[in-house]
């Protein structure tokens, strides 16, 4: 028989019906049919403790705080009262105030619940904005299929024409020597005189850089009378003097 073993846990189930220590306290007061303005604290505190004995730990704190409060009030009630009754402040007053306040909240909750139920019972237009289309499912294909597809694509394309690129270094010192040699023989010369016929681009570039280098060093002058005219090269008298 399982039922007897489940006995203690039935408290937990029971306590879930309460919304908190104040709710539990109110229901005790109702069950015991006692006057909320004259709570028999000792009796209610004892019952309160009995009910929370099997509370799960995470909920216990709220209830234990109330239990401690009840015990303190119980102790205060036992203290001998002052002869002047008018000055006596009921230690239960604050608790009663809170209970009544909570009772009021419960009443509002009943109202709200009724209103929410009435609203839930009426449907509004259920307009749902069109959602974006779902993303395509991830591709599922084998490596062979992928390779075959790549091969098919490559076969369609033409064989690309490839150029072999050969790096040619420029020979600027060589060109400088050539230009200097020519300048020794002739005072003036033209661009074409220092370039061998059928020159490779690297040779042309070498000569160009050689001329610029020599002009910078002051060994020669470069002149171009008009755009696209032949460049005239002449010995630099000043440079020669230096």
């Amino acid at each position, binding site marked *: 028989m399982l039922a007897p073993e489940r006995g203690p846990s039935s408290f937990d189930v029971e306590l879930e019906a309460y919304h908190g220590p104040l709710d539990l306290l109110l229901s005790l007061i109702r069950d015991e049919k006692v006057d909320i303005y004259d709570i028999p604290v000792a009796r209610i505190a004892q019952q309160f403790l009995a009910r929370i004995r099997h509370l799960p730990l995470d909920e216990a704190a709220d209830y234990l705080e109330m239990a401690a409060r009840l015990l303190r009030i119980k102790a205060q009630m036992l203290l001998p009262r002052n002869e002047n009754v008018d000055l006596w402040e009921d230690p239960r007053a604050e608790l009663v105030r809170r209970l009544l306040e909570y009772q009021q909240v419960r009443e509002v909750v009943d109202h709200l619940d009724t209103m929410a139920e009435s609203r839930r019972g009426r449907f509004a*237009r259920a307009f749902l904005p069109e959602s974006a289309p779902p993303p395509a499912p991830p591709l599922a294909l084998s490596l062979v299929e992928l390779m075959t597809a790549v091969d098919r694509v490559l076969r369609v394309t033409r064989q690309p024409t490839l150029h072999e690129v050969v790096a040619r270094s420029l020979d600027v010192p060589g060109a400088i020597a050539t230009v200097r040699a020519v300048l020794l023989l002739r005072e003036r010369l033209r661009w074409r005189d220092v370039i061998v016929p059928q020159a490779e681009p690297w040779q042309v570039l070498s000569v160009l850089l050689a001329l610029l280098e020599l002009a910078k060093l002051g060994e020669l002058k470069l002149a171009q009378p008009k755009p696209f005219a032949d460049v005239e090269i002449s010995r630099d008298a000043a440079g020669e003097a230096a």
Partner: protein
Amino acid sequence: MTPLAKLLEAALFASARPIPTDELATLDAEASPASVRVALDELRDTLDNDGHGVELVELGEGWQLLTRPEYTEAIERAQLALRPQRLSGASLETLAIIAYRQPIGRSEIEEIRGVAVGSVLKALVERGLIDIVGRAEGLGRPLLYGTTPLFLEHFALRHLGELPRADELAVALRPLVRIEEPDVDLADAGDADAEPELGLGAAGDAAR
């Protein structure tokens, strides 16, 4: 129906949310807010009197077409629409306190409810029923919560004033919402009535 009433019906049908009166007025450049109100009345009367399955309801600071309660069960049984999830007791208690005391901080709510409300507050904010409306002065500048327009919609309220007034509740401890009655009236009533609740209520006020 007048053309304006028909236009309003179409707009209300097209919208999933309640439409405020001034927004309805923008539908027709020639329509004044007053004429919109007349047309809304006309639409409501037509829906009520000609036997329609929907009705025009004013709620949540606007107007909305809702199905009539008698068809709810059939609609839900056919799974054409689902009712929103019902709020738990803890959520309702917390909402009730916020609705009457807003703006209010977490510790005050916990003081009234007697339990921790952190997770409940988070869930209510996520559901859009409450929102953070500011911060209190004082230590730690705690967050203050208030209800949203969705709260009004959820409970089919036009405004917060439609919540039951404190003096309409059986236990009138102290006015939660000060709409008409100042504290003095309540205290006077308590003296005159000699009802224990009211008498103690005044005492409770004094104690605070």
